């Protein structure tokens, strides 16, 4: 199984699509005036030709309403408050993947707003407003430093303590921007990512956090297709404001996965500092890979701030290519989620009843997924669900405490 990816803006003329001989499906991203409005995955025989009418028919089935919605939105014009100049640091925390890092940085330099220079140029044209900062986490060699050295105007910093949240917190202290965006090193930002971030902040001037749409960078392997067909990192194509209440969500805000993905997020830097930064006992790599983003989103909301999900703030993530890697990823998500839940359960007594309900819901959800996948006879899917369940169970059994002890040791060794 392997899909082609195509990106079509319905406002610009587009051509027919021919499915290559080595692909048996299509992942189609539809936009309206640069704004992503739908992502569709469809099976096709290799060699199938899709005419412009075929593509319009697909678009119509999936996004006719949304298209009308976007056209209506255009007719309500609001004066954009671009008088407020915001400064931005883009932080890429990385470890040992120089080729991916190169690709990530090149995409960052290409992103822009319409009628403006690309971010790569803005780094030298407006250095007080924009910077890109690479935090190399506990590197064992100089490869990443060499990569960054090839790009003018990109800052490089080393964080010796291993752990994604050590790196993120280092980025917070080293950054100079009022806002800090975190982009994972396996992510390629959209050309209009910068427009999306500015747009989210202009529409929601009170937002302290912004999460973005994360789409697949490739659907070349069965593992990538499986992950994306379960929803991937998608949170939809409607902007969402998250505040203190979310009617209709009885588990709010404890089910922090709804807020977005850590692979593509941005914050007001002083708010992060006021929250004490990321929890370094989470996201500690092989031992506890995950949970740091859930935790920061949760604490942001609990502290009274507003978080916004903005589909225009889009990026492409390279999903795990092989099924075993994906399975390990699911285990780590289960562990990360459980660790976050346990930590928050202890730290936030007011929400304990909610967390208990969340645990019940989570188990119910996983069991339903298991039932569904067994009915379909999809054994790889069954293994993934079992992996996430297993991760959750490990996590409940003291994962967070073990991790805390580990990092205390780390910090004392470093001191």
């Amino acid at each position, binding site marked *: 199984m392997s899909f082609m990816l195509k990106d079509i803006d*319905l*406002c610009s003329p587009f051509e027919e699509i021919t499915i290559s001989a080595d692909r048996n499906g299509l992942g189609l991203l539809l936009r309206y005036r640069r704004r992503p409005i739908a992502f569709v995955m469809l099976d096709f025989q290799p060699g199938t030709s899709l005419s412009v009418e075929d593509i*319009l*028919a697909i*678009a*119509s*089935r999936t996004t*006719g*309403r949304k*298209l*009308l*919605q976007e*056209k*209506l*939105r255009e*007719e*309500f014009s*609001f004066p954009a408050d671009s008088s407020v100049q915001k400064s931005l640091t883009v932080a890429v925390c990385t470890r040992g993947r120089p080729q991916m890092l190169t690709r990530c940085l090149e995409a960052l330099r290409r992103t822009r707003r319409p009628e403006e220079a690309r971010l790569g140029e803005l780094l030298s044209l407006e250095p007080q407003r924009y910077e890109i900062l690479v935090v190399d986490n506990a590197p064992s060699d100089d490869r990443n430093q060499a990569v960054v050295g090839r790009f003018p105007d990109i800052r490089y910093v080393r964080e010796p303590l291993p752990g994604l949240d050590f790196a993120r917190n280092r980025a917070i202290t080293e950054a100079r921007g009022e806002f800090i965006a975190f982009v994972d090193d396996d992510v390629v930002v959209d050309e209009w990512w910068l427009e999306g971030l500015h747009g989210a902040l202009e*529409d*929601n*001037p009170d937002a302290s956090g912004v999460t973005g749409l994360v789409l697949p960078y490739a659907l070349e392997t069965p593992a990538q297709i499986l992950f994306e067909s379960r929803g991937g990192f998608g949170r939809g194509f*409607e*902007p969402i*404001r998250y*505040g*203190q*209440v979310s*009617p209709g969500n*009885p588990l709010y805000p404890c089910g922090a996965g709804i807020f977005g993905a850590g692979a593509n997020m941005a914050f007001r830097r002083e708010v992060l500092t006021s929250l004490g930064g990321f929890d370094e006992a989470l996201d500690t790599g092989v031992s506890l890979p995950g949970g740091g983003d859930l935790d920061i989103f949760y604490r942001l909301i609990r502290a009274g701030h507003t978080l916004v999900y903005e589909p225009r703030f889009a990026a492409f993530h390279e999903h795990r290519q092989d099924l075993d890697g994906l399975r390990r990823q699911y285990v780590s998500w289960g562990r990360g989620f459980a660790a976050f839940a346990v930590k928050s359960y202890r730290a936030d007594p007011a929400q304990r009843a909610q967390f208990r309900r969340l645990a019940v819901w989570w188990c119910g959800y996983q069991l339903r997924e298991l039932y569904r996948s067994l009915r379909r006879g999809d054994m790889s899917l069954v293994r993934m669900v079992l992996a996430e369940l297993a991760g959750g169970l490990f996590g409940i059994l003291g994962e967070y405490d073990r991790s805390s002890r580990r990092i205390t040791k780390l910090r004392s060794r470093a001191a």
Partner: protein
Amino acid sequence: MNGYGPRRMVDIDIARPLPELQGDPDFAGAFAVIWRDRVPLCTLDIQNGELPLSPDAVLQSILQRAVPAIGWRLFGEDFAAHPPLPPGKRRNRNSPDLSAILNATDLLDRLDRSLEEEVETGGPTVSLIICTRNRPKQLAACLRAVGVLRPPPEELIVVNNSPSDKATEAVVREFSDIRYLVEPKPGLSAARNAGIAVASGEVIAFTDDDVEVTENWISRIKRAFADPDVMAISGLMLPRELETEAQVAFQLRLRRGISLPFRPLTFDSAFFEDWRSRGVPCWLIGAGANMAFRRQIFDHVGLFDERLGAGAAGCSEDSEMWYRILARGYSCRYDPACVVRHSHRRTVEEARTQAFLYMRGHVTALVVQAVEHGHLGNLVRLFAKLPWYYLREFTGTLWRGFDINARLTLSEIAGVPAGLCYAAAHIWQPKHRAYERLRVALAPTT
């Protein structure tokens, strides 16, 4: 935050600059109705925790929800709504014509023009019948709203049902041009039938004494009957206020989670046949507080069933009438442009009584429908679907807690055996008094 706290009522016209929505400490949230030139597009229920909302955020909330109604007005069939299908059945939906949408410009101007085209002069004559019983203050407010109707109905009839004092008559006397009559047989159906017997209009419209009609209600009704195939019209019922827990709970339960439709719906024999084997959900068609009929339909199918309705079984005289109309092959049309504002019951006790009577009436109607038409689907609903529904509702209660919603559900459940008893006792009675005898009895009026 209490999900049943009071809501501040807000009207937002998108033809004007959008407002910022502020929180109000006296209310738990805001209930906004979104309009474009007096045509409703959608509603928004916003909790205080989500407020304040900037105009941008208000727009974002509105856009997604208003698209179906706007899409229908601009692109017609492509965005048309259809009556719901039973679970398990699927409808082949036509996808909208994407190039038409892509190439369209000036959408809001086109929307305004389509709304202008709808203002109707002429059309059938309308007799408006209001039945009332011992609620003089509400009746006064209702009649004041009726007085603002532009155009007014050609005839306004107030039927005082089995009054216990002169208060209602006194209120009616304060207004002019009302044909007033008294119907001594208690029951909303009996009163409605008395009104029909004396009405002279080509179209007979009904509203209730706890309702305030909107200024263009009659105009919209006339417009809706322009299509000669339309025999019955129902309209949109919005809340007048949501100040008490009982009112909010009633509003949220109104359509059992199916949101108020803001696009016209045609209920026809296809809809009837789809549902017949499991009980046709005629209560989805509308509410007796906002309905109108071409008068000859009463010659075809008869008058309102006097065993049903407030004062008798408790409810469902309206849905049973629609059932008969559909069973005969005629169509009913729901038109959300015909808008009224209803005052829901304020206290929990009244709401519980209402819930009980609603179910008692509904169960009686199911028996009546099964007996009169031989449609066993009504019994399938009564003995299979309803119990299953209440079982699910109760497991939901374990999750959500025993709140006012659960109390109302309990009252409803009590209505079921009560309905069976009522039906057993009254099924032997005739459906209604003979039309001709009614006309003669009511002929000389004050």
